[in-house]
């Protein structure tokens, strides 16, 4: 079945350093979504990417969707302690937007002040 892999599993950075997490799907995706989950919390929607090669920015966060629509990345510039949490990518498989999200294992970000 479809799998979504995410690396790295953990990342410790000093406040002010940059951070990147990568997401790879075993199959082509109709779209990809990114979520952030704080410790003890629930996933909170960040963004959805739909088009091949799409790049979207939210303040210090930059999201990319690969040309083949099988990979994606999230880059955070100049991390802050408020960025702490686990970042998940979630793929919507196949040629249609089915609403069945396949999540990666997540990347847990720790930021040292």
């Amino acid at each position, binding site marked *: 079945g479809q799998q979504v892999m995410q690396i790295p599993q953990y990342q410790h950075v000093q406040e002010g350093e940059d951070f990147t997490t990568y997401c790879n799907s075993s199959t082509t995706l109709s779209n990809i979504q990114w979520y952030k989950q704080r410790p003890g919390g*629930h996933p909170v*929607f960040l963004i959805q990417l739909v088009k091949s090669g799409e790049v979207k920015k939210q303040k210090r966060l930059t999201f990319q969707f690969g040309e083949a629509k099988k990979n994606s990345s999230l880059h955070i510039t100049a991390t802050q302690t408020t960025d702490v949490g686990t970042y*998940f990518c979630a793929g919507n498989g196949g040629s249609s937007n089915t*609403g*069945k999200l396949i999540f990666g294992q*997540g990347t847990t970000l720790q930021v040292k002040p």
Partner: protein
Amino acid sequence: DAGVTQSPTHLIKTRGQQVTLRCSPKSGHDTVSWYQQALGQGPQFIFQYYEEEERQRGNFPDRFSGHQFPNYSSELNVNALLLGDSALYLCASSLIQTKQYFGPGTRLTVT
């Protein structure tokens, strides 16, 4: 405008018992999806309900069943609980085929 709500917040059950979890979707949403999140893992899709029918299902046994009511709220039932069913159960609501909003989850512990 209330977001997605789930009840109960926490639950402790014994192996072999049955459990029912509840979800009320965000106002205006008609689709409810259920996910299981084991500790340290990403959420795993259980099933999705739309128009009171199960539209899609993940790789979960028949012990997991659900229901959607005319007001779009939903229940997740798990029979014959196993220790491995201990997890955070998340409900997500949406309009069909749009982004999903997650509720706070129900933490189920099976002893």
